[in-house]
C-alpha cells in the first residue's frame, strides 16, 4: 500500500485532478465527508494542513505527497523532491502600499528594519538576509494582506495567484521572491523501498507533462 499525503485547502482539487490523471483512484477523495484518512484500492490518502504535509513524509507516515514548493522551502524538512507537477502555479511576492514602492527601487538600505508580515518566516528571513537587509518579520497565520492597512506591518510576503486579493486591499507587488508550483515528493526511505511504484507514477507524470 502506498500512503499519500495531500494538502487541504486551495490546491486540493487540483491535486485530486492530478491523481486522476495519474490513474490513481479518487472516488473516495471527491466524495469524502469529514474523514481525513481515506483508503482506496492500493492507496491510503491522508489529508493534512499544507504546512504539516512535509512532516508526514519526513517521519515516514506517508510514502508520497503533493505539496507546494513554498511549503517545502518554508519547512525545509528532509525529503526527496521527485518532480514539479506544473500544477498549482502561483508565486511568493513582496507587496505593500503604493507609497512604499520607491524603497524597493532605491538602495537596499531603504529596506532596513521594514516590518514584513508573512506566513513564511523562514523564506522571508533567508530572502532578506541573502540581500544583506535586516527586517522585522511578523509571523502571521492568515489574512496577511490586512496587516499593512491595520498598521501591523509595512509590507507583506505572501502567495499570489491572480492578484485580486492584493488589489482589493490596495497592495502593489514590489518583488517576486519565487515562483511556486505543486511538487511530488517522497520519503527518503520510501524512495528506496517503493521505487518501482514511485518511478511508475513519475513516468506517468512525465507523459502527462509532455
Amino acid at each position, binding site marked *: 500500500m502506498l500512503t499519500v499525503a495531500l494538502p487541504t485547502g486551495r490546491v486540493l482539487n487540483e491535486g485530486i485532478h492530478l491523481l486522476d490523471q495519474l490513474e490513481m483512484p479518487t472516488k473516495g477523495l471527491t466524495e469524502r465527508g469529514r474523514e481525513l484518512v481515506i483508503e482506496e484500492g492500493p492507496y491510503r490518502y491522508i489529508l493534512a494542513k499544507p504546512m504539516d504535509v512535509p512532516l508526514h513524509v519526513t517521519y515516514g507516515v506517508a510514502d508520497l505527497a503533493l505539496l507546494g514548493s513554498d511549503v517545502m522551502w518554508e*519547512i525545509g524538512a528532509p525529503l526527496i523532491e521527485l518532480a514539479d507537477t506544473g500544477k498549482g502555479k502561483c508565486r511568493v511576492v513582496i507587496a505593500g502600499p503604493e507609497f512604499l514602492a520607491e524603497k524597493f527601487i532605491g538602495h537596499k538600505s531603504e529596506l532596513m528594519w521594514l516590518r514584513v508580515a508573512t506566513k513564511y518566516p523562514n523564506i522571508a528571513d533567508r530572502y532578506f538576509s541573502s540581500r544583506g537587509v535586516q527586517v522585522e518579520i511578523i509571523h502571521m497565520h492568515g489574512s496577511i494582506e490586512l496587516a499593512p492597512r491595520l498598521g501591523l506591518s509595512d509590507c507583506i510576503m505572501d502567495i499570489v495567484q491572480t492578484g485580486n486579493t492584493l488589489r482589493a486591499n490596495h497592495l502593489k507587488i514590489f518583488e517576486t521572491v519565487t515562483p511556486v508550483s505543486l511538487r511530488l515528493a517522497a520519503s527518503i526511505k520510501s524512495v528506496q523501498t517503493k521505487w518501482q511504484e514511485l518511478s511508475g507514477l513519475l513516468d506517468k507524470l512525465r507523459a502527462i507533462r509532455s
Partner: protein
Amino acid sequence: MSRLPRGCTNVGGHLASSMQRCRSEMISLMHSYGYQTFWPSALQLLETAWDRLPSSLRKRLITLNTPFAEPCCLRADITLAAVSYLSSHFSPEERPLRLCYADRIYKTPVRPDTYLEGFQVGAELLGWEGDGADTELIFLLLQSMDMVGVEDSFLVLGDVTFLQDLLFDIDKEIAKALVSALEKGSYAEYYSLLKLGRINTAQAEKLSRVPSLKGNMEILDEAERLLDDRGSLRSLRKILSSLAEMGFKDRIKVDLSLVRELNYYSGPIFDIYTRRHGRSLGGGGRYDGLLSGYGILGQAIGFAIDLELIASFSKYTEVEPSVMIWAGGLSTGDVIAQAEEIRVKGHSIEISWTPSREDSIHLAKMRGLTFWIELPESKVIDMNTGLATNLAKWVE
C-alpha cells in the same frame, strides 16, 4: 522549575536504559572484533576542524572560546577526532587501526529536528587497503542492528566514484550544481539542470539515468554500461557479493544517486534505515580524502548511527521484566545477600526498604515491575496475575 538551554535535553527513564543496553551490546560486538574504545574530547580546535569537515557540517558547528582564548567548536562528528587521534598516536606499522565510540555530538539542528545534542555510536577502520574493510564495517553495522532487535533494518549502498566518473568531462559549475541537487534530494532540480542545454545530449542522457539507478545488485550492470571505465564500480560489486554470500542479500539495496561531499568521501557510501522510520538511522563510507588531510595515504572507512533512534526501535523499548524485593524488616545484610542470589540468576532487582508491605506493592505497580518478592515469607507474587510462588522454587 529549572530548565535546560533551548535545544538541549536530559535523557532519563526508560529511553536512557534502552540506549545504554543498545550501546553496551554494540560496543561489546565491536570490542570482540578488535575495535578499541575511544572517548574523544568534546572540544575541537576550530583551526584544525574547519578545513577537514564537510562544508554541510561546517555550517552547523557550535563554536566557542575556551578560557585559554582558543577558538573551538563542540565536536559535530566523532570521525574527525578519531582520525586525528589514530594518525598521531600510532605508527604506520601498527595499521590497520580500529576504533569504536559512543558519545554525544553537538550541532545546529536542521528542521524538523530541534535538538543541538545527539548520541552517536560508530566505528572507524583505518589503513587497510582492500574491500575486506568495507565489508567488515558493514557486517558489524548490520550485526549490531540484529543484536539490538532492529532486524527490519536495511542498508542502501552507493559509490561516489560513479558520479565522479560520469561528471568528469562536464563543466565544473554545472557538475557542482548537479551534485548539490542530489545532495538536497531534489530530483526535480537535477532534471531541470540537465535540460538547460549546457551538457551535450549523450552525457545528459546518461546523467538522466542516475536517480533511477536504484534496486538490487543487478542495477550495477546498467550502471556500468554508462561508464567508460567499467572498473570504477568494482569495489561496490565485491562488497555486494560478499554481503550476499553472508546472507544479507535481502537487506541490501543499491542507490547510485546516493551522494555525499565528493571531496570528503571517496568510494562506497551507505545509509541504514528501518522500515518503521522515514529517515536514515545513520550511515558511513570510505573517506580517504579526510585521511590525506592528515598526511596519511590509504583507505579509511567508518560509520556512525543515532543511538537514540536505534534505542527507540530496539527490542529494549518494552519495560524489561524485573523484580522488587521487599525487605520486610529483615536485617540489611541478609536482604542484600538474598537479593544478590536472585540477581546472579539473571534478574534485574530493586530493593524496597519501606516497612509498609502495601507501600512496597504500590511502588512495584507504579514502576510496572513484573514480580514482587516478600522476603520474610519467601514468597514471589506475579504482578500481572496476582499468583504467589515459593521463592526457592521460583529462583530455580
